[in-house]
């Protein structure tokens, strides 16, 4: 009876995941976009509904809607009208559909054929923008809403369940079958499938891929709102922005069971996951250690992680039949577009004003001065002090290191990982243990915290060997959420979370900052050195084309694991510096949400460039802090701006800022100025970027090559 109860409860919980996953599947199926904004869109719809519905509106703590123009005091707080149930639902659904259409039209349409990382970062950016705006508009606190229906308790053979449970389950089933039929038999359904298969071919057949995508986003958003309202009504009836976004993992997991294409598969996947979680929680563990470890609150997320890894690793045929598994790493710099690249346009402008030569050749001292100008403020605060700035600058160091760790793993090696803060958390908790329990001095703890990050990174690195692109992102996301909700909140960690600064003095903060900065600088130099060796070249090769890398003798297994290890080490050191600056490690500092913001920051700053680390720290930690002092209310705005920037970056310049600077300030290439001279802005062709331009030139190239001479002088390796 005990187990039967668990299974039934699991099925009902799983129906929620199914409902949530179906919208994700719909969007992915039609557009190949893994929609991280799904939950955010649904939550907006749910908020609209509960603010309008006359059954709930009067019971809310904050019934009004708060419109505000950022950076100003201008605001407007209207009370929304109270509407009957059906009208409120209709308005909520219409608004979410419009929101979905807006997302498609304003952002995703420009990202057709974009690499996976761009799609992920774009939807994360949208997620951040929507969440930031909505928190501002709706409320800042959790609301409790009344039940949707007069909930009956049913009891069949001693197993209890509620009306809402039944409605959710039936709706999920109906959607699975209904949408499945729609895709199989209707013209629009077939058009969507065709577009997903080959955008180009279906375009030739007269199907408008844009309209298919718009439909998918509208329908997906519709489902998101429906699911969000029901999920809130079914669970603890708490209306807030956090609980629904964390459902992204079970939602993606359910969709994964359907191979992100089958709605029936998604339905079954949701149920399977729900039952697996419930059975796992229901186990009476034989030893006290096991029951504290696996009985913890985050156990369901741990089960999600296991399920994701097992399914993706074994790739059962019945799920993955006909699913296109990513062949590419999904990480690429922006392709050369027609016309002069933006960096070349700027170079040409600078060159015409004779500034470029100055910057490149004559400005060596100037560059050192600029560097000194950046470094001196960092070192200006007296060492033996407690300073507000050590916390700010310390978090900048942490930020830079995390972005660096992302650059190595994702930007350099092409492994899309959303788990950087998991590695950092391991390093941070390790720092607490080593410094407090074992009294190990700072100078040893820092490298050791890096070493602690390595095994955790390898733990996800091993399954990653068989995964690429979005599937890898999914596995690492599940891993990150398991770290956040299951591993780090374990009672052992929350009782051993103090860091002892030792010689760096618990009563002073600035010495810890300086030492962290020094360690970060060492790590940066080390990685920069590494970037010039064959190791980094092997990583780049794996990122750009694994098969070509293999045919050049690069062992992908070894070098991928190496990338995970190095990335884990850097993040671990980041965690160590976090520990020394904050003294208390809390699981809430290492969340998947923050990881997502780091990924967006890395992409905006230039995910393949080391300079992205310091640049991101400056743009996303120091700049907001400095401006926040003069302009009030910048904090939520910075999230929104960050999200918008992320979307804009992946659409306009996926290579990021650091890459842009480095390309503007590169040395002159042969024939570059000649090419500029012959290109006008309006002409829009770029001979400079086209390699050997004309046929004659190329023929000449071949002839020269054929009559060259390869006599290697003595002393050259291989001679």
């Amino acid at each position, binding site marked *: 009876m005990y187990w039967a109860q668990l299974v039934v409860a699991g099925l009902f919980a799983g129906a929620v995941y199914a409902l949530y996953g179906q919208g994700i599947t719909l969007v992915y199926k039609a557009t190949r976009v893994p929609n991280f904004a799904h939950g955010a869109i649904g939550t907006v719809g749910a908020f609209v509904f509960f603010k309008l519905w006359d059954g709930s509106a009067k019971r809310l703590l904050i019934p009004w809607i708060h419109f505000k123009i950022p950076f100003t005091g201008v605001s407007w707080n209207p009370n929304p009208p109270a509407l009957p149930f059906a009208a409120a639902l209709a308005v909520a659904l219409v608004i979410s559909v419009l929101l979905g259409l807006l997302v498609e039209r304003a952002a995703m349409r420009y990202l057709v054929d974009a690499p996976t990382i761009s799609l992920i970062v774009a939807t994360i950016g949208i997620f951040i923008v929507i969440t930031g705006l909505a928190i501002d508009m709706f409320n800042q606190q959790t609301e409790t809403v009344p039940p949707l229906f007069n909930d009956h308790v049913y009891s069949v053979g001693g197993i209890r369940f509620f009306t809402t449970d039944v409605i959710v389950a039936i709706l999920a089933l109906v959607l699975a079958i209904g949408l499945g039929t729609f895709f199989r038999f209707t013209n629009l359904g077939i058009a969507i499938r065709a577009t997903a298969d080959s955008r180009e071919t279906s375009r030739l057949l007269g199907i408008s891929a844009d309209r298919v995508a718009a439909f998918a986003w509208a329908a997906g958003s519709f489902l998101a709102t429906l699911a969000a309202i029901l999920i809130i009504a079914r669970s603890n009836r708490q209306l807030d922005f956090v609980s629904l976004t964390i459902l992204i993992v079970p939602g993606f997991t359910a969709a994964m069971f359907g191979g992100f294409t089958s709605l029936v598969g998604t339905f079954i996947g949701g149920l399977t996951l729900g039952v697996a979680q419930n059975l796992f929680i229901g186990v009476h563990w034989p030893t006290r250690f096991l029951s504290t470890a696996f009985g913890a609150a985050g156990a369901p997320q741990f089960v999600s992680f296991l399920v994701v890894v097992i399914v993706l690793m074994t790739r059962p045929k019945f799920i993955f039949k006909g699913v296109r598994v990513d062949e590419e790493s999904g990480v*690429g*710099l922006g*392709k*050369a577009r027609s016309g002069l690249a933006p960096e070349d346009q700027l170079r040409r402008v600078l060159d015409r004003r004779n500034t470029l030569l100055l910057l490149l050749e004559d400005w060596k001292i100037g560059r050192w001065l600029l560097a000194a100008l950046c470094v001196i403020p960092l070192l200006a605060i007296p060492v033996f002090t407690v300073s507000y700035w050590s916390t700010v600058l310390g978090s900048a160091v942490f930020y830079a290191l995390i972005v660096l760790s992302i650059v190595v793993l994702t930007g350099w090696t092409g492994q899309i990982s959303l788990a950087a803060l998991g590695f950092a958390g391991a390093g941070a908790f390790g720092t607490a243990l080593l410094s407090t329990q074992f009294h190990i001095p700072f100078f040893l703890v820092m490298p050791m915290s890096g070493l602690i990050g390595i095994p955790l990174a390898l733990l996800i690195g091993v399954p990653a060997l068989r995964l690429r692109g979005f599937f890898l992102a999914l596995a690492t996301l599940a891993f990150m959420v398991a770290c956040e909700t299951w591993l780090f909140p374990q009672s052992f960690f929350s009782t051993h979370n103090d860091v002892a600064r030792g010689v760096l003095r618990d009563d002073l903060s600035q010495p810890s900052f300086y030492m962290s900065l020094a360690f970060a600088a060492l790590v940066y130099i*080390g990685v920069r*050195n*590494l970037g*010039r*060796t*064959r*190791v*980094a*070249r*092997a990583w*780049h*090769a794996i*990122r*750009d*084309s694994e*098969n*070509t*890398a*293999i*045919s*050049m*003798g*690069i*062992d*992908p297994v*070894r*070098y991928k694991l*190496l990338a995970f290890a*190095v990335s884990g080490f850097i993040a671990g050191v980041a965690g160590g510096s976090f520990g020394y600056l904050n003294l208390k490690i809390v699981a809430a500092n290492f969340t998947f949400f923050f990881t997502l913001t780091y990924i967006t920051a890395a992409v905006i700053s230039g995910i*393949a460039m080391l300079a992205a680390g310091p640049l991101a720290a400056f743009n996303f930690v120091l700049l907001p802090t400095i401006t926040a002092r003069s302009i009030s209310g910048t904090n939520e705005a910075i999230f929104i701006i960050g999200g918008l920037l992320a979307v804009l970056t992946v659409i306009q310049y996926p290579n990021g800022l650091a890459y842009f600077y480095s390309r503007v300030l590169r*040395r002159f*290439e*042969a*024939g570059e100025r000649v090419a500029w001279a012959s290109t006008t802005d309006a002409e829009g062709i770029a001979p400079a*970027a*086209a*390699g*050997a*331009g004309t*046929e004659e030139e*190329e*023929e000449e*190239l*071949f*002839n*020269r*090559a*054929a*009559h*060259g*001479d*390869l006599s*290697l002088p003595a002393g*050259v*390796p*291989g001679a």
Partner: protein
Amino acid sequence: MPDSFFEIAGISLRFGGLQVLNDVSFTVEQGEIVGLIGPNGAGKTTLFDVVSGFHKPAGGHIWFKDVDLVEERPYRRAWLGLGRTFQTARLFQNETVLDTVKTACHRRMGGGALVSTLRGALGTPSSVTAEREVEERAQMMIARLGLDDYSNKLCSELSYGTLRLTELASMLAMEPELVLLDEPSSGIAQRETEALGPLLLELREELGATFLLIEHDMPLIMGISDRIVALASGEILAQGTPAEVQANDQVIESYLGGRVDLDEVVA
């Protein structure tokens, strides 16, 4: 144990119900250029994929310098001296020509991955020297193929012909003993194709390497190959000198659908 430098012995491969390669066997002697021809879908590229390890054959052996390649992991085959280019010139989109050629030197640099990482991060003299040597070597190969002007261009910015030359420069840098070239003329203009023949012959001279190449350009492949292997529907149709294969009725049948004067067709 085979006597030849390189021997494909009874390689078979099935994709589902389709027999892609059926008991394919032939040998290549050291220093030879052997051309692989056949209509589309004959299994030429698939055979290359089997040799480089991207498909595991259902049966058969591939002997290369007395080692059975089938037993070796794909990346190990490069270390044994096997080089390969791809039909669609798959090079590293986000790397410069110079870095691509340096990447091809991977196996020429000593030290394991872990040791290289530690040395590299610390910037030890040995690592710095090794990098400088690779740089010099890559520059030389680039100069050899006349690519100096392009060495700092990204591969994604190159035209197809330049990309092909970059591939050859990478092969030079890798210094393999056996090179598999998959349609080196595809995507480049006719006049360049004519220059390609002498170039390949010269590279053989300089590298002392053995070439196995797939090619659809008949004058090119017939002009430079010592021997030709003709493949159709996964089986060997004929092999021999270019003249013998050109005269083979079956080859003419499968390629051209009847006897036509070959010289007239390709001219």
